[in-house]
């Protein structure tokens, strides 16, 4: 889809989002974009506001100020059209542990309104793509952490969303499973032209990003491609870049001499 100016419209746009929690400003003036087929990383320490931002993008919270557009639809006024275009893997698992893999996938298809015959085809494909075919009849509580995460990813893609939101999706996985999971998400992003917003606090998940947003204490303190950010801030490593940006933000906020 292209905008009036001829530029491709982002699948996700947030404009100056603000959110307060018990009168404390948790997110402040967050503006960001994710385009089709783009792998965007939102890097931030625990408590930076990543999950709150995801809750605003998915409509679980309503922002105090600002707007969210998903595939051009305003989340506030065209909520259902906007939500239909996103797939989410939340930080906390949202699969039903009492049901089987297949039952979980069927349930999601029904929530998304996918016709039974289409659902059957989509589920079979998803199970195969994510190496879950042999586990289809097994209850979720019998799966390993990695298998459960793969199931969440498979489920999030069943309705072919334009935008995939991954909120600390690798939490609790060992290094090998994390790498495999990240690579399979990247592959999906490239193959299906799905826009991905990947929230993480782990530096080793940042390297593959097409674009990086650094969230610190509820504010985007830097954004750009990794090479551009490294050059701009005269840093040679991502670790160094992160420390530099966060320290700069802290000293800016506390004023000179802090």
């Amino acid at each position, binding site marked *: 889809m292209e905008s009036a100016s001829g530029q491709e419209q982002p699948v996700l746009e947030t404009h100056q989002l603000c959110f307060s929690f018990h009168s404390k400003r948790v997110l402040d003036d967050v503006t960001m974009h994710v385009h089709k087929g783009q792998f965007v990383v939102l890097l931030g320490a625990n408590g930076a506001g990543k999950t709150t931002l995801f809750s605003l993008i998915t*409509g679980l919270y309503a922002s105090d100020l600002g707007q969210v557009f998903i595939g051009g639809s305003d989340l506030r006024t065209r909520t259902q059209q906007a939500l239909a275009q996103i797939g*989410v893997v939340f930080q906390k698992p949202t699969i039903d542990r009492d049901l089987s893999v297949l039952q979980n996938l069927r349930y999601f298809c029904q929530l998304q309104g996918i016709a039974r015959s289409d659902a059957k085809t989509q589920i079979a494909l998803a199970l195969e793509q994510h190496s879950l075919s042999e586990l289809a009849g097994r209850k979720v509580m019998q799966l390993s952490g990695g298998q459960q995460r793969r199931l969440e990813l498979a489920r999030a893609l069943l309705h072919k969303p334009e935008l995939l939101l991954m909120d600390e999706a690798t939490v609790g996985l060992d290094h090998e499973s994390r790498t495999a999971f990240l690579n399979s998400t990247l592959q999906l992003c490239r193959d299906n032209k799905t826009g991905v917003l990947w929230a993480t606090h782990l530096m080793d998940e940042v390297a593959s990003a097409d674009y990086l947003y650094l969230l610190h204490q509820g504010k985007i303190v830097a954004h750009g491609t990794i090479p551009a950010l490294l050059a701009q801030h005269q840093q040679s490593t991502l670790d160094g870049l992160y420390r530099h940006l966060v320290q700069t933000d802290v000293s800016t906020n506390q004023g000179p001499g802090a």
Partner: protein
Amino acid sequence: MNAQHALRCLYGIVSRESLRFLNQRGRFFAALVRPLVWLFIFAAGFRSILGVSIVPPYQTYILYEEYITPGLLGMILLFNGMQSSLSMVYDREMGSMRLLLVSPLPRWYLLLCKLLAGVAVALLQSYVFLAIAWFWDIHPPVFGYLLVLPALVLSGLMLGALGLMLSSFVKQLENFAGVMNFVIFPMFFASSALYPLWQIRDASEWLYWVGYLNPFTHGIELIRFALYLQFSWQSAAVVVVCTLVFLSVAVVGYDPLRGSLARKIDAR
């Protein structure tokens, strides 16, 4: 909202709740044992003490067991309504509620589906209870088994909506247990489930009015009248109005713009 999508979603949520219920067999038996204990033990013990004279819809003197059967059906619906709300608090804590709330359908409709799913499970329990009660000489008119269905659905919706409303204000599962104790027991005992309201009036005028104003009383009376092929307009009106009020408050409670939900899902 697309009608086909809405129906698929309703079917999905009802199937999920039913599957969860069937997977948890202990829950099924526990839900049945409670009213059966009251029917087999409590009613038998109190039969001679709590004699019931002729009151509508009954045409003649009845055994105490027969009197409390609609009350015990109400008990099943009440516990089930609260149980399904408890599961919503649990789902919210465990995260699966998020999945439901980010589905591309209006939030009021998603909550209504959850409510209907809870009622479907309660109906199954109610008919199994009625079948067992039949062997205990509780024999309402055969057609009553059919007529009681809409009454069970309406009362179940009201009690489910009440639970839904409460769940929207509760932050954690632990707090909900307290709410259940403050709601279930007062509602059940201050109603016409175990004794007719006129008998309560003999003991205390104010307790009579508490029972009379208790929506649960009207849910039970709706069931009692329907089971004996009669219709109580007053009870039906109270149940419908209460359902709408409870559901509306719940929808507002779960609305991120106006409700308390946004502050309930833990922010990080």
